[in-house]
């Protein structure tokens, strides 16, 4: 019993036919060919599938595609603005916040969510807030440093906010 869903992904209206059991991550990867969003586990621990859903970082393996009908989704492919990387992407590159790269898209999208709610987190807060994203390569040291650097870069240049995050960007974080 397939259902039609319509959603805005990285700013573009998309439509698809899905079984109700189809996970959002599978719809993104298989239906829309946005393979930057990864699947690393099946119990919701690893966070490799993290995307922004209506501005919030969520695990797209814990959302049914039908639940995202009418929603706005942003994936790692939609984070850079033109040729300019998002400050978080840039900081991950600058500070060697990745090795094999598999957890990286989810890590970056989670970081977008973290900084949206708390634009100036301490290292300890970053570590706490990254609990839902596992990395087996980096020992997290450079990931934490990258998020911290991105936070300070973004405070210097608020205009670099991604389109998806900016809509709800001021809603919280007090």
């Amino acid at each position, binding site marked *: 019993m397939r259902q039609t869903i319509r959603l805005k992904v990285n700013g573009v209206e998309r439509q698809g036919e899905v079984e109700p059991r189809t996970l959002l991550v599978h719809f993104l990867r298989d239906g829309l060919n946005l393979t930057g969003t990864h699947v690393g586990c099946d119990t919701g621990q690893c966070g490799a599938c993290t995307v922004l859903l209506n501005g919030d970082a969520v695990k797209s393996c*814990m959302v049914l595609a039908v639940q995202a009908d009418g929603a706005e989704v942003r994936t790692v492919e939609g984070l850079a603005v033109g040729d300019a990387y998002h400050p978080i992407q840039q900081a991950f590159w600058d500070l060697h916040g990745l090795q094999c790269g598999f957890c990286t898209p989810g890590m970056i999208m*989670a970081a977008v969510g973290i900084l949206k709610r708390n634009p100036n987190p301490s290292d300890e807060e970053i570590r706490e807030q990254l609990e839902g994203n596992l990395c087996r390569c980096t020992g997290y040291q450079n990931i934490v440093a990258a998020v911290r650097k991105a936070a300070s870069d973004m405070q210097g240049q608020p205009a670099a906010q991604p389109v998806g995050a900016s809509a709800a960007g001021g809603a919280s974080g007090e």
Partner: protein
Amino acid sequence: MYATDFAYHAPASLREVVALLQQGDPNGGEVKVLAGGQSLIPLLKLRMAAPAALVDLRNVAELRGISEEGDGVVIGAATTYFQTIDSPVVQRRCPLLVQAISQVGDPQVRARGTVGGSLAHADPAGDLPAVAVALDAELRAVGPNGQRTIAAKDFFVDLLTTSLDPAEVLTAVKFAATDRPHTGTSYQKHRHPASGYAVVGVAAVVMLNDDGTVQAARIGVTGAGAHAARASGVEQAIAGKTLDDATLTSAVASVTDGMELMSDTYASSEYRAHLARVLTKRALLDAAARAR
């Protein structure tokens, strides 16, 4: 990970939700309510749940929102964790909810997960059930026979089991406000290192007399037994007393009385009981410190 397939409904009103639940599945399959999905969807993927149909609450606006009601705060069942802890009303009147919810899962889970979903799922290691017990929550449900209210202490029946009927849906939860003089709250949790669930979690509300003795306390414990429960023995043992070490040590000895203690490879029942005692002590001391 692929779930078994199911029918999916996303009605716009509570009336339709109840009707769908009441109708059930023509082939006798299970019809389940889908709220934030942060507990249910993993179970579907692992095929540990295989419902015939899901009724999604996401379009039911009347299930969301936060309001003040007399001596309490009412939170719509489909209100997310983030919406809850971001609410100035909740922050002011029920800081225990903020402290506990901030320790639920991870930010992604807190963005999607809902207050009602957590309580209705009744995970024995969930954080919110302990808080519901400590904040004397009233759980409001609607079913084919209309509305009813269930006290938190009567709501959690067993492992993943509540006193809701299959065709009932949780609509809102009223938590007792604690923004009163000489009242403090605390949630203390031993976090499972992998799942993030509470191996043991203790939520405490402490009301002090002017002289610093305990006027009354309410304590909810999760993780230790098959369902969240109130530690009435401890509450009585500290009433009227100063929370010194001797009083606390003797009082918390009874915290798991009447509980059927869980045991797993991470924590034996013996260790869980010990944690319950330690965390109860810490929660009471922290709550009392905030009450002063």
